[in-house]
């Protein structure tokens, strides 16, 4: 989770190190500890793990949108809204 920021990472989104992640059978739940925001995202445990792994490694926003659409019933507009919510809550950086 610890990363050293450099220009090479520009354009990718990462999971905030201040995000406390809980994955259950049907829900990904993330609490952003420094801004005290909590978000939930309905998905299977496996998909939740896949999503978190991608965010830990860094992912381009268009790829993240595809990933979100692929593991939920959200359409493109809803996926973009999910992404915006996560950014607003400080879960993504």
């Amino acid at each position: 989770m610890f990363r050293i920021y450099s220009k090479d990472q520009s354009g990718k989104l990462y999971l905030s190190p201040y995000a406390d992640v809980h994955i259950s059978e049907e829900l990904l739940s993330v609490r952003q500890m420094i801004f005290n925001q909590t978000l939930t995202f309905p998905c299977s445990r496996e998909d939740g793990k896949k999503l978190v792994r991608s965010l830990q490694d860094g992912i381009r926003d268009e790829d993240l949108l595809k990933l979100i659409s692929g593991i939920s019933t959200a359409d493109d507009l809803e996926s973009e809204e999910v992404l915006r919510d996560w950014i607003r809550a400080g879960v993504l950086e």
Partner: protein
Amino acid sequence: MITEERVSGYRKGKLTVFGTVALIGESSAYVIRPETGTGLAMDLASLSALRKQEIQDDLAFTMVQRGLASYDRSRDLSAWHEDVRPEFFLIDLTKTCNLSCRYCFREFEKNYPVMTEEMIDEISSCLIAYWREHPYLKLSLQPWGGEPLICLPLIRRLRRNFDRAGLFPKIMIETNGTLITEETAAALKEDRIDIGISIDGNAVVHDLQRPLAAGGGSLRFVEQGVDNLRKAGYSGFGTITVVTENTIRHLSEVLEYFANLHVRSIKLNMMRRNSRNLGLAPDPKEFGGYLDSLLGYLYRLYQRHVPIVEQNIAQRLLNLVHRPDNNICNAHGCHGGYRMLSFDSLGKIFPCELSDFPDYCIGSVKDHDLRGMVEKAIESGHEYFRPKDQSECKDCPWRYFCRGGCRSAAKFACGDPSRLDTTECAFNKALYPRLVAILLQDRGFAEYLQSGDVE
């Protein structure tokens, strides 16, 4: 090694970049905002841009997300408020002990009674009522002493009381380990009691510092207790060690002893000076050398794939990487009263187990409104809760985590809990830069220091 540099804050349009402290290594730096304890590691090119106040949008975005900058007054991390929500309770069963440790700070008053069964029932009722009123809390209970196992029936009674109520708090003890017979180990296991054992290391150090009250070394009894715990099925217990001048002198043997004991978790607590044994407490000037030796030895254990974690180091690394605010003493200063309370054997309640000065009593077991009790003490300006004087901390990068240290240690040292805990201060100032250096240079070792996990 790491160099420290202030980086000024600035405003550019709607972007406000806060003042930070940069800890600079060979090819990268860790930038921390002391007010919030949030930070970001970056390469030196990014640091250079930050110094010149010319950061690009992508770095600005990351800094906003970490509370190091704000955009159009987007969020304010400094509006932090600490709630009173005690979750960790110490229960002082007895001051009696079968050891006579040379650094012990407890007052062995002859008229201090051992807790009665009626009192443990009353404390159980108080905590059960409190928990039912605040079911979202996670309660942890620690019967302690003196030596808590002198009162094993009370510990078992405490568990039974909660079992009967259908509530299952974490119950843990820190014991000197000498009284753990096979029967005691089986009873503790049956009652799901977590165990921490006080061991100061190999026989040379341990027996010198922790002799039996009746005379003679205690280590062989502790080792027998450890064997009995393992026979009863315990594997995950940790150890607590008081670091003295002797420990520092024999550090490599002490750590090798723990590695050979196959302990997964150790906690090396720096001894604070007290009036009884001034000569035993390490001088803060020695902390740097001590930490270099400790980290060097842990690195060798890492290379040998020995799974072991030192909890003081792990906690501070967690602070740097995740800022979890999860520790009552070391994550964001002292949370005595706010997150913990201590019951004495007469049912009097104190903000912390180390603050059992008579005038620090803030209530009694008969009062079930534990939160209200603390809030009232805070509002009335009770000495324990007075804000820490952090005038000496204003330039310190680590002040979010330390906040002037332990209130009780300051009270013991100079009679005023709002003063600086000089041991904690010196320890943090010595340890954090070393941990930043490890984070920047060797992430594998940093991971190991946080968890003790080996491949």
